[in-house]
């Protein structure tokens, strides 16, 4: 910076020469210099003030914004044990009325920190006294192992056990809080619920993960912390499920069947009201999958969903419905039922022949294999395959169970004429009872497709149309006639108008061919038949009614009485009131 001199020599000399006082010049210059300095410092002060003002403004703005955010944020409740980033919460599962099927219970897990242990050997012996299944020697060895600092001892403790462990007085034994999955109804709906186990374990929390059934399939939703307090509502009705399981278990015992399954489904929405599979298990201690033997003998096998069976004559309903729908025949058209019907070196026979010619209605009501095979010949394999596919019988079932997607229906790759004819009466195509129920729902509900579901679906939308209203009405009349005067008279419940179709299929022998004395007996139907609300499918594996002089295995003597008893019990629970002047809907078959 160039300083202007206060006494510039040139001007001083000039002033002296003129006789003026040079001090005036100095004072003048000093004044100018002071003015300059003042201006400079004022500018600096102004800058600083502005800077400070901006700073304060920013500070206040920040505080204001933070307050606004705090005021606008939703209140949040503290959740315990968030420490280890393990979400222990798991939503409850309830039935359609909100009754609890699965919930969480707080328990404690027992672990040991060996550096705090006073006397590991004594602790091991005391623990073995409380928990008899623990091996004291092995535990003592592990507790005294200097390389070990931490040891899980038991995953779940009851409050009494916690107190007993407290009373040992060992500071190295510690408890970690645990959420435990509890199924308060025990075996009820075991196959639907599946089971749960612990995933990642930390000291203060452990993850519960579904291992099977709906617990596994809906795991992501159940574990979602944002939805932890919204229970997952199933379509199952607890009381109907209990009644179905009770009657089915009784029937299975009386008929000495190896296994049994039953499905009750809403005919319009596809909601599964009850789904039972026997033998069953307790989901609170789900048994391990079998490592040897036939997996279908294990109690964890869900016969209603995982079992793919050749269900026999119940499949005739689809052949007859398609023949009617295509306009090939009417209910009173006559069909050639002379037997045996030979196709290649295979021959089709009837269980009991009823003459050389029968009407289509009688073919269905009295279950003629030959007549149905003739109808299948008229329809043709390609159309039959498309038709069955549209009912969902050729695809894995969409039911929300972990096991469902792994089960594929079995049918021949080459859908030839012989396959088409055997499939028409239920041999050569295997499917699960739950898919059969959904397909029957579509047959009787007026002809619209139904997707089976285990989740509550309050307002169902009708699916795509598969058969006409007219065909559906004819099928209902025929199914009603099967019960009122055909093979399933033991299903009859006064006033409830049940209807359906029986099916007795010889069991395939794993060594080839079919057994002659082992059958799968099925009844598939609906009630009340004048306006079907519920579809029911009951299946018994190797039933045998030994009350008569010779053992009876046909579905009319095995599955039918069990179904009748189930309907008698569940109709009032479902609010189906017996109709006093029950319309005789099968009369339409005679007039046409």
């Amino acid at each position, binding site marked *: 910076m160039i300083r202007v001199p206060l006494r510039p020599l040139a001007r001083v000399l000039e002033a002296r020469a003129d006789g003026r006082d040079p001090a005036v010049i100095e004072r003048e210059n000093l004044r100018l210099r002071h003015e300059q300095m003042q201006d400079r410092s004022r500018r600096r002060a102004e800058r600083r003030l502005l800077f400070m003002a901006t700073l304060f403004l920013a500070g206040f703005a920040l505080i204001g914004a933070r307050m606004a955010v705090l005021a606008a944020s939703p209140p949040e*409740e*503290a*959740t*315990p044990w968030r420490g280890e980033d393990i979400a222990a919460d798991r939503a409850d599962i309830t039935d359609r009325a909100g*009754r*609890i099927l699965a*919930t*969480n*219970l*707080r328990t404690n897990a027992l672990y040991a920190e060996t550096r705090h242990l006073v006397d590991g050997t004594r602790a091991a012996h005391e623990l073995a006294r409380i928990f008899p299944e623990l091996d004291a020697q092995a535990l003592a060895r592990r507790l005294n192992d200097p390389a070990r600092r931490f040891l899980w001892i038991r995953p779940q403790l009851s409050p009494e056990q916690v107190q007993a462990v407290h009373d040992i007085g060992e500071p190295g034994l510690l408890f970690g809080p645990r959420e435990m999955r*509890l199924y*308060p*109804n*025990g*075996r*009820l709906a075991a196959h639907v619920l599946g089971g749960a186990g612990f995933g990642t374990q930390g000291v203060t929390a452990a993850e519960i993960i579904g291992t099977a059934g709906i617990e596994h399939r809906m795991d992501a939703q159940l574990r979602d912390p944002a939805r932890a307090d919204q229970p997952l509502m199933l379509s199952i009705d*607890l*009381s109907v499920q*209990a*009644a179905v399981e*009770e009657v089915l278990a009784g029937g299975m015992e009386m008929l000495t069947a190896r296994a049994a399954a039953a499905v009750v489904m809403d005919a319009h929405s596809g909601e599964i009201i009850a789904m039972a599979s026997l033998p069953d298990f307790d989901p609170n201690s789900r048994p391990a999958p079998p490592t040897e033997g036939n997996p279908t003998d294990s109690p964890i096998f869900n016969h209603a969903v995982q079992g793919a069976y050749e269900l026999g004559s119940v499949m005739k309903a689809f052949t007859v419905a398609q023949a009617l729908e295509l306009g090939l025949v009417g209910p009173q058209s006559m069909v050639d039922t002379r037997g045996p019907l030979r196709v290649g070196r295979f021959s089709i026979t009837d269980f009991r022949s009823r003459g050389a010619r029968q009407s289509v209605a009688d073919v269905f009501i009295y279950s003629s294999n030959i007549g149905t095979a003739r109808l299948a010949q008229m329809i043709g394999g390609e159309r039959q395959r498309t038709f069955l596919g549209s009912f969902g019988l050729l695809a894995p079932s969409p039911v929300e169970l972990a096991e469902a997607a792994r089960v594929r229906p079995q049918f021949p790759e080459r859908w030839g004429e012989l396959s088409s004819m055997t499939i028409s009466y239920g041999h050569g195509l295997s499917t699960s009872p739950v898919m059969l129920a959904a397909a029957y729902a579509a047959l009787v509900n007026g002809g619209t497709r139904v997707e089976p579901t285990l989740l509550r679906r309050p307002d169902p939308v009708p699916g795509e149309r598969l058969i006409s209203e007219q065909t559906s009405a004819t099928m209902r009349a025929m199914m009603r006639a099967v019960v009122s005067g055909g093979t399933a008279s033991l299903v009859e*419940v*006064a*006033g*409830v108008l049940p209807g359906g179709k029986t099916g007795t299929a010889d069991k395939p022998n794993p060594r080839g061919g079919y057994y002659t004395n082992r059958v799968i007996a099925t009844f598939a139907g609906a009630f009340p038949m004048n306006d079907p609300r519920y579809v029911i499918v009951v299946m018994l594996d190797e039933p045998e009614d030994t009350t008569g002089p010779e053992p009876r295995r046909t579905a009319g003597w095995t599955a039918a009485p069990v179904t009748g008893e189930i*309907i*008698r*019990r569940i*109709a*009032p*629970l479902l609010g*189906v*009131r*017996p109709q006093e002047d029950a319309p005789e809907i099968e009369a339409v078959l005679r007039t046409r």
Partner: protein
Amino acid sequence: MRSLLYLMTALGVMALAVWAYHENHRTQQARADMRAVEREIEALRAALSMQRAEWAYLNRPDRLRQLVDMNFTRLRLMPMTVEQYGHIGEIVYPPMPPVHTPGAYLGTSVETLGTIDHTIGTDPAEAP
């Protein structure tokens, strides 16, 4: 004048400091209270879920069925079936309750009853 202003400012700052300290204290107290309430909510919620589980466990169909079987001689409960539906008309009317007439008592003659009991009729003048 100026010193008064300074004094006021100083007092103001002190007052604000006291207020801020007070607010800070209150906030901390409120947070502590909130934590206590949250712990209580948590404990109550755990107790509630425990009781709901207990309720579901005690109401499980298996147990109810056992209780019904145990008390069959007393209660005679049978499974609900369709045969049990009835008509509203099948329900008998309850027996009529005995008519109590105020003032009338055992031994009073019918004539006397007629004169004292004018509350039954609408108008005493119309009563027989």
